[in-house]
């Protein structure tokens, strides 16, 4: 029995690629467009108003907090002096360092 052979001239091409025209723009343009729309949405003068209302208050709030920290700092130093008898410097630095451990009074306060 003779073997089956391909037809003369070979088989026809198999259509495996999709042959659809690409619709719309390149994907990158959609990405850019999305960011433009987002940037427009984020732009808001109300945000400026809110930010400045806080900026005007920041020094006031910071000053109050600093005073409280300094008060606690001096209280801590006084306690250390009483317990240790000397002015022991814990850090080799002149900077103001917020304490890692908070002093808890023995009795209920406030």
């Amino acid at each position, binding site marked *: 029995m003779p073997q089956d052979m391909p037809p003369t001239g070979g088989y026809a091409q198999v259509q495996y690629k999709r042959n659809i025209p690409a619709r719309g723009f390149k994907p990158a343009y959609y990405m850019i467009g999305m960011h433009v729309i987002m940037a427009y949405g984020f732009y808001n003068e109300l945000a400026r108003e809110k930010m*400045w209302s806080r900026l*005007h*208050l920041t*020094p006031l709030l*910071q*000053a109050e907090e600093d005073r409280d920290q300094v008060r606690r700092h001096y209280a801590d130093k006084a306690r250390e002096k009483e317990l240790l008898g000397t002015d022991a410097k814990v850090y080799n630095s002149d900077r103001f360092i917020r304490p890692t451990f*908070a002093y808890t*009074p023995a009795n209920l*306060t406030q």
Partner: protein
Amino acid sequence: MAQRDARFNQTVLVDTTPMPDHIPKVEEVGATSAPLMSAAYFIGDRCKAFNDDFMKCKDEANGRGEIDCLKEGRKVTRCAASVIKDINTHCLDQFKAHWECLENNNHQLWECRRAEMQLNNCVFDKLGLKKTIPGTPEGQVPVHLRPKQKYAQYPGPQW
């Protein structure tokens, strides 16, 4: 370093040792967030010099600002307290209306433009302090002067 305050929620344990005597005393402002926000622009208007001075001092103090800038800090607090006091004496009703509105509206300034307008007018007449938002683009109506507010619950003109 502890960047956060110690908060004790079981018992009230606060170090109540007073400030040592060699540091001058100053009364704290004692206002809560809504009145402060309501008065923020007036504080900014009157106290800008003190505020900038304090922040500059802190910036240049090389990490010792907490202790070295106490004097500037007291000035900041006294100035802000004077603004709150003046508003309280001259425009109490408008002030109260505005900050209570803020309190009820999640501190969103655009919900309270009517009260704000009345407060701004009163403060400008009595104290000469004006609300200006720095950095507003030229030729644009500042947001607080637009009667219609974009995100407000009430879409129409607020005054």
